[in-house]
């Protein structure tokens, strides 16, 4: 009786402590949100104190400073096109890689997987020369191609292991009914790929939206710059007040947070994908 009571109390206590621990962990984030809603004078008076009045002024200020409207649209366009091209090209490639069991296809697969451990820094300089020669510097197309190339290894890895887990019976039946490879892919395989596609999409969208290096190097035209590049080049964190710094940081993640609210189940699944199976 007493031991049950003791266990229950210590269990509740543990849960409370765990909640507090989690809270401490995300405290910098909450602090960012609260501070960006305060006035500069208020923050200067007591950086950690409770806000006396809330204002959206900091956000409108940061909005103009990092040219948010234009750069958010640019980032959205680049992220959307990259996601589309990675999923289409990646899923198409995974079908033969999963189904054709021959020496050459194993090698092609390995070549793709190799790419998962190649840091972009290793190819960035030669890629710059290549893009310059192809006249693709300063173009959305160039950036989308680069994102496609560097994310294809992950897409191929995700899709191929997923297609391998789909039984071949359905496809054989379709083949006997006279379905070609193309039709089999579109009517049978593609619809089955939906869950892994949303997982992959959240992964890729996070990568592309948050990336600094590729747009910094390959997009010089101010009109084409992304949110991260503008935030990086217009705001120096060492001289700037938190009331300018924090709203800028929040504006950078706002669209992702909104998407996350709708897709959180897939995001969590996507982030932990592969851990159980491997």
């Amino acid at each position: 009786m007493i031991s049950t009571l003791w266990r229950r109390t210590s269990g509740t206590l543990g849960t409370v402590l765990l909640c507090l621990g989690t809270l401490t962990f995300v405290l910098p984030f909450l602090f960012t949100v609260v501070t960006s809603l305060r006035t500069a004078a208020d923050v200067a008076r007591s950086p950690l104190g409770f806000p006396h009045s809330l204002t959206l002024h900091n956000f409108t200020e940061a909005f103009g400073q990092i040219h948010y409207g234009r750069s958010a649209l640019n980032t959205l366009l680049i992220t959307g096109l990259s996601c589309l091209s990675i999923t289409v090209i990646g899923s198409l490639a995974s079908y033969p890689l999963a189904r054709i069991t021959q020496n050459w296809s194993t090698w092609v697969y390995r070549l793709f997987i190799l790419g998962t451990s190649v840091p972009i820094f290793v190819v960035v300089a030669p890629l710059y020369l290549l893009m310059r020669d192809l006249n693709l510097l300063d173009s959305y197309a160039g950036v989308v191609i680069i994102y496609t190339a560097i994310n294809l290894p992950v897409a191929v890895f995700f899709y191929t292991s997923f297609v391998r887990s789909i039984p071949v019976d359905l496809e054989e039946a379709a083949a006997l009914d006279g379905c070609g490879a193309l039709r089999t892919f579109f009517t049978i395989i593609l619809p089955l790929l939906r869950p892994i596609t949303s997982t992959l999409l959240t992964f890729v969208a996070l990568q592309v939206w948050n990336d600094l290096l590729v747009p910094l190097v390959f997009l010089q035209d101010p009109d084409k710059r992304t949110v991260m590049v503008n935030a990086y080049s217009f705001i120096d964190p060492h001289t700037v007040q938190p009331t300018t710094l924090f709203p800028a940081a929040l504006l950078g993640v706002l669209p992702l947070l909104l998407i996350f609210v709708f897709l959180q189940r897939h995001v969590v699944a996507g982030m932990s994908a592969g851990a159980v199976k491997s």
Partner: protein
Amino acid sequence: MFHRRRATMAAFLLPAIVIYGAFMLYPLARGVYLSMTDSLGGPIANFVGTEQYRAMADDPKVTAALWHTVLYAAVVVVAQNGLGLLFASLLFRRPKVRKTLSVVLLTPTLVSPVMAAFIWSYLFAPEGGINALLGVLGLDSLQHVWLGDTSTALYAVAAVNVWMFAGYSCAIFLAGYMSVPTDLLDAAAVDGASGWQRFRSVEWPMLAPALTVNVTLSLIGSLKVFEFPLVLTNGGPAGATDTLTMLVYRNVFGGGKFAFGIAVSVLLLVTVVVLSSATSSLLRLRERRI
């Protein structure tokens, strides 16, 4: 019939092979070649063999950057996975709050590295959040210029990395926990095993695959860190947070030492490939033995 089918199927690979080959494999090969030239990025380049590599070996900045990169990765891998594992094992025992808290822990992961660096550059500032907090707690003696001191800067930058991705490690460990058969845990509970005993002899071995994934991912991720040192310290103070990626960026896009920068990037590639394949094969060997 099946022959033609297979040919069509193989054709599906074409777009992927073209893009991956032209924009990943070709630049990779060209980079290795350029690292053996005196290229400045223009059309003229002479083959100079291992000259850039010899210059690299003689350059204390490169040796220091290599050491910073490896040390940074070691700190991040240990701290991030330790924290992730701690949160995951505590959350696993509390199914009621598990889902909500694991989602909350993931929010820093959504913040981009640039934005996380913005937030923490204020928190680490001399008059910033952490020192103010220490002041409020009466721990003034611990106040510090975190990013301005050569002895703490690299660890401060690593802490931001850990903060951002510990929730991610936690999510992967939790997924690993979900694959532990419940009857195994029940049996251990019936046998009267304590919480620590259950963790040590049942959960920890079952988490081996999750550990392999987590360590490999965090190792590769931290070896190629760029945005954190760039935004937080720009390599300073006195080069204390200069990593290999920072050297690549600075030499290739501004230093006029194009080929040298590419040679540093090849060093980065070798470091990543050697360390990550050694670690993951060791961990897989361990998985099999358990």
